């Protein structure tokens, strides 16, 4: 057979995923077959997708038209560098998650494993189709299929009412977002009625309509990505879903929304106005700040991670904003820098966030416990998970030498050169935004220390944790795989950037590659070594060398003797698990400093309480300021409307009579 084009291979991969899913229905209850055969197969397909997309990077865009779709609008597909980058992300991350899932879905909770398998692989396939779609209809079909399959995955354990509510909220907001996206496409056709992306590219929209399209896209994709104020579904849906699903949603699905935003604002729209960037920047900052603050005060480990995802999406949005601003002023070099930061953070976040979610999955399996207040000391029982999670935590805290830091570094670099902007107050405001970004990053560190310290360190807060077991082989493989990606992204940034640079060049016309080529693979110097440089390898080597050398020297010159005894703790007698910080206690400084940001219900014990207890419930302001009023308004309208159906036949007759009379008197040709 002739050599397959990458796009064909990806199509086949999507079909293969669908086929695997359908196979799951053959024996829906045969857990062994499904988890030990089908999911690994899916993982292989994922590896295929990832490597094909990686290989196709830098190549010319390939298109294909399928025979299905609307009569006058068949499915158009297109694989260009942008979609290739995200397809690569999808493929490689899904490998880890699928293998982990093979070990995770031992006993299918609620839904039959076969059905889970179907939903899961449909989810994968639809995400791939979203990336490949090249016309509005195909995109919407793939997009909504993605939403649907993920919704069913979220409500896997649908016996619990709150999980059902979470799923409903998720699907509702997803649907509203989809409506906005559809409108956006409608605007972008400019009335020409050609709904293929090629047709939209051909349109030259007036600034007004272009802005309308951009804002609609921001709203629509923001709803899926979790930009404030459309974020409320995210912290509900992620804890509800099984961990591999949360990992997939947080790691990959949110990125498809970013993909859509990039696609619309850089590929389909030609005009770029500087204030678009400011909007994205501000929204992103608010989202990031909101997300990180709330993630620090969560007491449910998956909610904490969900809010941290909101924060990261916010940072990505900030990067997009910067890119737009630079792009609007034709400062393409800097735009390329910011764009690289965006893409890089997408990659980094998808790796480390899915890693962390999978770790929570293992913890959940080992302890049946999601609330931080009942965990602790697991590093003794599950060392594998603990040490792998540490990598995710460091990356997520944006610390060198792991992946999170690289993207933040790039982002800050692009901020640093913003004063070149030819706009009087823009170059004032943007650096201050940089300050906030740093602030967010530092707070993320706080949240991550809380996450890790409370779950894995300290004494076990519950006796039940004694018999927690470490992850199984499949789970271990998944975790290790994602850790390796995180490590790779951390220490080989320029190698990776040279790969994904194709996408940047496609969107902005210029990239960082030529600059990076001048220096070695170990050095990341986007502009020039004199201006800024970062060598994670050297960095890592130095620290490791000092560590080992120091250890060796100390043992050599002195000794390595160790005595074990009970902890000192300033000589306090009571040292039970309850003496250490609770999750609430750990975040108390945040709650105290940023009190107005939260809606808190607290109960303080009084001196005379027979059974004193302290409780705090932190809620989201937006829920009360935005969502409930809307719901109330709708309810009010429908109370008005239902009076039409009063049950009186005479009244009904009168409606018809009046309608007739009005038409007779008013309607004239």
């Amino acid at each position, binding site marked *: 057979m002739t050599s397959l084009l990458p796009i064909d291979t990806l199509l086949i991969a999507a079909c293969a995923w669908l086929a695997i899913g359908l196979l799951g229905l053959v024996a829906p209850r045969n857990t062994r077959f499904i988890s030990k055969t089908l999911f690994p197969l899916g993982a292989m397909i994922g590896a295929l997708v990832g490597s094909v997309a990686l290989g196709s990077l830098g190549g010319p865009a390939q298109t294909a038209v399928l*025979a*299905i*779709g*609307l*009569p006058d609008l068949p499915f158009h597909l297109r694989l260009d560098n942008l979609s290739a980058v995200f397809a690569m992300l999808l493929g490689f991350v899904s490998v880890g998650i699928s293998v982990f899932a093979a070990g995770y879905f031992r006993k299918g909770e609620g839904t039959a494993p076969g059905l889970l398998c179907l939903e899961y692989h449909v989810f994968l396939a639809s995400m791939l189709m979203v990336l490949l779609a090249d016309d*509005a*209809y195909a995109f*919407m*079909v*793939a*997009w*909504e*299929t993605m939403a*649907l399959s993920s919704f069913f995955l979220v*409500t896997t354990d*649908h*016996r619990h*009412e709150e999980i*059902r509510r979470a*799923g*409903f909220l998720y*699907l*509702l907001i997803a*649907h*509203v977002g989809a*409506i906005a996206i*559809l*409108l956006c496409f*409608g*605007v972008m*056709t400019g*009335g020409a*009625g050609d*709904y293929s992306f090629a047709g939209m590219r051909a349109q030259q929209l007036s600034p007004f309509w272009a802005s309308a399209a951009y804002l609609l896209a921001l709203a629509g994709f923001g709803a899926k990505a979790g930009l404030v104020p459309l974020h409320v579904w995210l912290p509900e849906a992620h804890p509800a879903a099984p961990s591999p699903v949360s990992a997939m949603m947080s790691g990959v699905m949110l990125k498809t929304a970013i993909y859509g935003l990039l696609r619309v604002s850089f590929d389909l729209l030609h005009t770029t106005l500087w204030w678009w960037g400011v909007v994205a920047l501000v929204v992103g900052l608010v989202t990031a700040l909101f997300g990180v603050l709330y993630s620090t005060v969560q007491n449910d480990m998956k909610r904490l991670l969900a809010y941290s995802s909101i924060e990261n999406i916010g940072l990505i949005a900030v990067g997009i904003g910067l890119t737009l601003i630079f792009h609007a002023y034709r400062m393409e070099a800097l735009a390329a820098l910011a764009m690289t930061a965006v893409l890089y953070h997408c990659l980094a976040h998808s790796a480390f966030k899915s890693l962390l979610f999978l770790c929570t999955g293992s913890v959940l399996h080992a302890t049946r416990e999601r609330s931080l207040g009942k965990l602790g000391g697991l590093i003794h029982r599950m060392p594998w998970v603990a040490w792998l999670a540490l990598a995710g935590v460091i990356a997520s805290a944006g610390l060198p030498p792991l992946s999170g830091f690289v993207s933040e570094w790039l982002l800050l670099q692009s901020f640093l050169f913003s004063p070149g902007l030819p706009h009087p107050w823009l170059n004032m405001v943007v650096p201050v935004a940089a300050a906030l970004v740093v602030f967010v990053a530092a707070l993320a560190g706080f949240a991550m220390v809380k996450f890790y310290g409370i779950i894995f360190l300290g004494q076990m807060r519950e006796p039940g944790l004694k018999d927690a077991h470490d992850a199984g082989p499949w789970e271990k493989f998944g975790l290790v795989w994602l850790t390796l990606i995180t490590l790779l992204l951390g220490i080989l940034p320029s190698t990776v950037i040279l790969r994904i640079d194709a996408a940047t060049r496609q969107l902005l016309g210029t990239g960082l590659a030529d600059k990076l080529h001048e220096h070695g693979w170990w050095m990341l110097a986007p502009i020039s070594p004199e201006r800024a440089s970062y060598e994670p390898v050297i960095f890592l080597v130095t620290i490791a060398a000092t560590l080992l050398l120091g250890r060796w020297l100390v043992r050599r010159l002195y000794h390595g003797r160790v005595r074990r005894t009970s902890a000192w703790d300033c000589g306090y007698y009571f040292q039970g698990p309850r003496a250490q910080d609770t999750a609430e206690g750990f975040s108390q400084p945040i709650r105290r400093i940023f009190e107005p940001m939260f809606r808190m219900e607290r109960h303080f014990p009084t001196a005379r309480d027979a059974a004193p207890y302290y409780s705090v419930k932190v809620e989201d302001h937006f829920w009360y300021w935005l969502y409930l009023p809307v719901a109330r308004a*709708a*309810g009010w*309208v*429908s*109370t*008005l*409307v*239902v009076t*039409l*159906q009063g049950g009186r*036949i005479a009244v*009904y*007759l009168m*409606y*018809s009579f009046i*309608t*007739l009379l009005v*038409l*007779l008197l008013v*309607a*004239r*040709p």
Partner: protein
Amino acid sequence: MDFFVLMLAIPLVSGALLTVFGECDWAPNLNIIASLGTFLAAAGLTAEIVANGPRFAFGEQFFIDSLNVFFVALTAFVGLTTSIFSGPYMRNEAEHGRLTKPRLRLYKSMYQLFMFAMLAALTTNNLGILWVAMEAATLTTVLLVSLYRTPASLEAAWKYFILCGVGIAQALFGTILLYFAAERVLGESGNALLWTHLIDVKGQLEPNIMALSFIFLLVGYGTKVGLAPLHNWLPDAHAEGPTPVSAVLSGLLLNVALYAILRCKVLADGAIPGDFAGKLMIGFGLFTLLVAAFFLSRQKDVKRMFAYSSIEHMGLITFAFGMGGPVANFAGLLHMTMHSLTKSAIFFAVGHATQKTGTQLMENIRGLIRINPLIGWGLMLGTLAILGMPPFGVFASEFMILTHAMKHYPWATPVLLLGLGVAFAAIFGKVQPMVFGETEAKRLPHAPAITPVFLHLGIVLMLGLYIPPYLTRWFHEAARMLG
């Protein structure tokens, strides 16, 4: 033997037979067989029309072209599946003692006569006969709605009868006016009500009279379509009648009424300058859509809720045809098809669900997929389909309608989206807990007929991803006839 004659004869004869022998054991099978025969005849007729184009029958009194043959095929198909579904359903009802044997007989005979009336209404060329057939359809369904003889069903049937009777009377007045206008052109020959003749001279018809007559026709047949504020009979009739009847009411009768309006619209458009009919229909459509959407959130009875959803979709379709033009008409026809298939599938699932749980109140129905996964998933998928979720076909038609509206009536788009969004929130929020969650099942003497549900959903799914070219051509031709 002529397919057309067969198609009309089979339901008529079998209806008569069932009136007599309706209580025999083989009666249900006869019902199904008759429907099957009707469907086969309709299929044959369709093939014939697609092959050799339009034709007359019984002189010029009946006329089949690519527009109505499409409705005929749809009607015959849904009629068949509904009869299949109603077999076990009705038996279960009988076992529960909600229906006696005579009632079952009445049900079967009326079912066939109802099919006959609708097919006649669809195929006739004479607007007078169209009216007569519509009235006949109303009468048969009145008996079907009141089948249970409970106070509620009687009340529903009474309202249905009075409101639709009055509405149809207005339609008759419109027909008379139409005749009045046509007579002045075509002379007092009997064929002044023949659509084929009218269409030739539509340009010469007096605009004022046509406008007046179209208003009467729209209000008249619109009552049957369920356009707000003429819709009040619809939820009651759907909720209180037996579920198969709700299925055919939603899936077929509304379509037939809308078809009547369409036939008249073509004439009105020809006669009246300035898109008069179109504007009226757009107005009605949007209003209906919004009103129905806001009704949805307050429903407690599952069948009632889906009745309102039918009203909502009828509004959408009316809006589409109001916009006119090949694309919008195409979308309208497509949406009619999708709605018929999906909604009847939903009613099948709902019927089984209500039998299993013994209630129509939604807060008492829980965990359907634990009772019977197929019913549960059928309801869930059907709901998602009717809510316009891809990859189901409803999304395809809604996509076309929306995009066309964005192009030509941008101001209408927000209204449409608001309506669709509200409907989504209302319906899905209610169906999800019904399908999911915990519950205890209830044994039924007769296994439910699941095949129709998934047959319909399968077709809808297929059409959402791939519309076969011949179907496209056919739709296009039909759309062209509507101008």
